[in-house]
């Protein structure tokens, strides 16, 4: 039986999504606009036999999340810009040591303390390249309360499947927004369990994991004598440090990248609306996609062929979808609450095949449909506009 529809806040939906995904450990530090996630989970975790802990800072929070995940618990933390910055070193550790975990970043205006209560999409590049060194990462960006729930579940599933940190880039608007939703029941969800390798401990070796068959990470204290390190390690020698062997370092670095990029098609999710006959596309993500959708509908009412492409996965970059887009439309409008962070990537992927129009703001205000409508008008200068509204 489906759950009744009720008013749910985006941050609350993230928390419920985590519980539904089987998360049983949360560590965090209060920060606007993500705090509700911690508040809800401090109540919910004991109810499901899980553990909530408020750590001394965000550095400790992500470290505790990594520890709990290593001990076998699906784990998450939630934060915003300044805390996300503090977490970067250990996000790199989780990428290097292949620790499944989920980081919710409810974006606010920055840099620094910035605009604590206003939305932003300024962490797009930090999510991709915030930690030092070559690594791969997965990042989702919800644009509705329902997606706060479903993408948190998906984040846990992919974290387990690819043994990687997964980032959910929410923002102050999506996180604090309330919508009437019927949250899915457990039988409506696919949940990836935390398993054990199907190889006896004496035969198990990390190198058995291949890009096509990534074995689950054995838990600390299980029958597998686990060694976890942030040093470059030799997957073929029980994860022993191998900092003096360039070939091993090269192999590990490429493996860490390929285990995600090889599965790019399965990971990347893009929603397309009105793209069948579109001449101009709006490419928008997160809360801005809501304004973009309104602008697109307005344009269709005006009789011009505008479509919406909404990346749900920001990283890995949805190359295939953007490639296809570049062949189809003459203009791609990229509105975002930052200054060209994602549109540069779009431009790189488009490689001159279509015009890329960027539109950004960093004043903490949402991009309104009218702003995007004005951009659309410029692209259909031959059209007779008869606005009524």
């Amino acid at each position, binding site marked *: 039986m489906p759950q009744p529809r009720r008013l749910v806040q985006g941050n609350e939906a993230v928390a419920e999504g985590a519980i539904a995904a089987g998360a049983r450990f949360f*560590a965090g530090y209060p920060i606007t606009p993500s705090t509700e996630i911690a508040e809800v989970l401090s109540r919910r975790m*004991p109810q499901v036999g899980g*553990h909530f802990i408020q*750590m001394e800072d965000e550095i*400790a929070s992500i*470290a*505790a999340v990594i*520890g709990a*995940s*290593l001990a076998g618990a699906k784990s998450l933390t939630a934060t915003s810009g300044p805390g996300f910055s503090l977490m970067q070193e250990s996000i790199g550790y989780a990428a290097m040591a292949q620790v499944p975990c989920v980081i919710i970043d409810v974006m606010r205006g920055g840099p620094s303390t910035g605009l604590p209560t206003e939305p932003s999409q300024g962490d797009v590049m930090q999510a991709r390249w915030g930690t030092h060194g070559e690594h791969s990462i997965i990042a989702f960006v919800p644009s509705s309360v329902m997606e706060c729930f479903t993408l948190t579940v998906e984040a846990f599933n992919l974290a387990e499947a690819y043994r990687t940190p997964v980032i959910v880039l929410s923002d102050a608007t999506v996180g604090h927004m309330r919508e009437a939703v019927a949250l899915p029941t457990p039988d409506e969800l696919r949940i990836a369990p935390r398993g054990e390798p199907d190889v006896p401990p004496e035969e198990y070796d990390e190198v058995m994991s291949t890009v096509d068959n990534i074995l689950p990470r054995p838990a600390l204290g299980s029958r597998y004598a686990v060694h976890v390190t942030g040093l470059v390690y030799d997957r073929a020698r029980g994860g022993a440090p191998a900092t003096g062997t360039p070939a091993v370092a090269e192999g590990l670095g490429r493996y860490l990248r390929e285990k995600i990029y090889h599965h790019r098609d399965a990971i990347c999710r893009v929603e397309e609306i009105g793209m069948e006959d579109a001449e101009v596309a709006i490419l928008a993500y997160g809360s801005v996609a809501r304004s973009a959708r309104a602008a697109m509908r307005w344009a269709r009412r005006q009789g011009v062929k505008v479509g919406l492409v909404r990346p749900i996965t920001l990283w890995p970059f949805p190359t295939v979808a953007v490639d296809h887009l570049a062949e189809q439309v003459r203009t791609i409008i990229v509105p975002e609450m930052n200054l060209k962070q994602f549109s540069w990537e779009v431009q790189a992927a488009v490689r001159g095949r279509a015009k890329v129009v960027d539109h950004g703001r960093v004043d903490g205000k949402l991009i309104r449909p009218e702003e995007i409508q004005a951009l659309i008008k410029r692209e259909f200068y031959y059209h007779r506009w008869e606005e009524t509204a």
Partner: protein
Amino acid sequence: MSALVDEELVERPPQDVSLPRIEPHATPEVLSHLRSPKTLWCPGCSNGIVTRALIDAVLSLELEPERTCVIAGIGCAGRITTYLKWSTVHTAHGRALAVATGVKAADPGLNVIVVMGDGDCVAIGGNHLIHAARRNIDVTALVFNNSIYGMTGGQMSPTTFEGDRSTTSVYGNVEQAFDICELAHAAGATYVARGTPYGYTRLAQLIAGGIAHKGFAFVEAMVSCPTYYGRQNGIPDPSAMMKRQYDRSVPVDKFDRDGPRLHDRYPVGVLHHAERSEYTAAYAEIVARVQGEAGDRA
């Protein structure tokens, strides 16, 4: 004094603590707990002695090696995770206690031992030390205090004694050294001990006492770094350095707390011992209560 921290705190005179008996184990058995007998520690370094004391302590307590997890940070001491054959985590610099907090919370049945260097523990990781102690979480923190950053080649640390030289205090250190045991005690650790590699069996006993203790246990091993500390401070001979450490250590019951401190003499033994509510046990009670209430309603 600590009554402010917790009303149920029961202070015990340190000499009342009965420490576990240590059975010295033969070298082949000790080696069987190592992934490799080779280490990157310099000749004359006493980290290996403390590592053996830890193995002796764990074996004497008859802990299940599989259920014993050693978590360490970055630095010479942190490399212990590479050598021990148990479940081991080599974390980022300074974060061992925070990672250990997550491990212990997720699996309270694990024996969690955290190994840190002095820089790891009280410089970059100092915040985690005071909060782990405040929570009284049941992990054992073992600090290899060599008073210097060895891995990076001999820079001063928060435990470098005033006046001593390092590659970043070439004219003599103007800062006062941390007394980490006092810090851990003040922050709420319920078992605090200090030992030296020279007093091997006693050190192993102090470590075992920390592991057996239910709550946050802090054990400081005063180790020597002849390569970087000794050579820069006129005592390059490893045995002379160890002997000097032993000479400076005073059994806690004979130690005059009002006398001169640290540089010339420091107390060794169990410096502090108390009983107070342990973090994971207290949280488990909350989980049981919340789930019980939910059951009552159903």
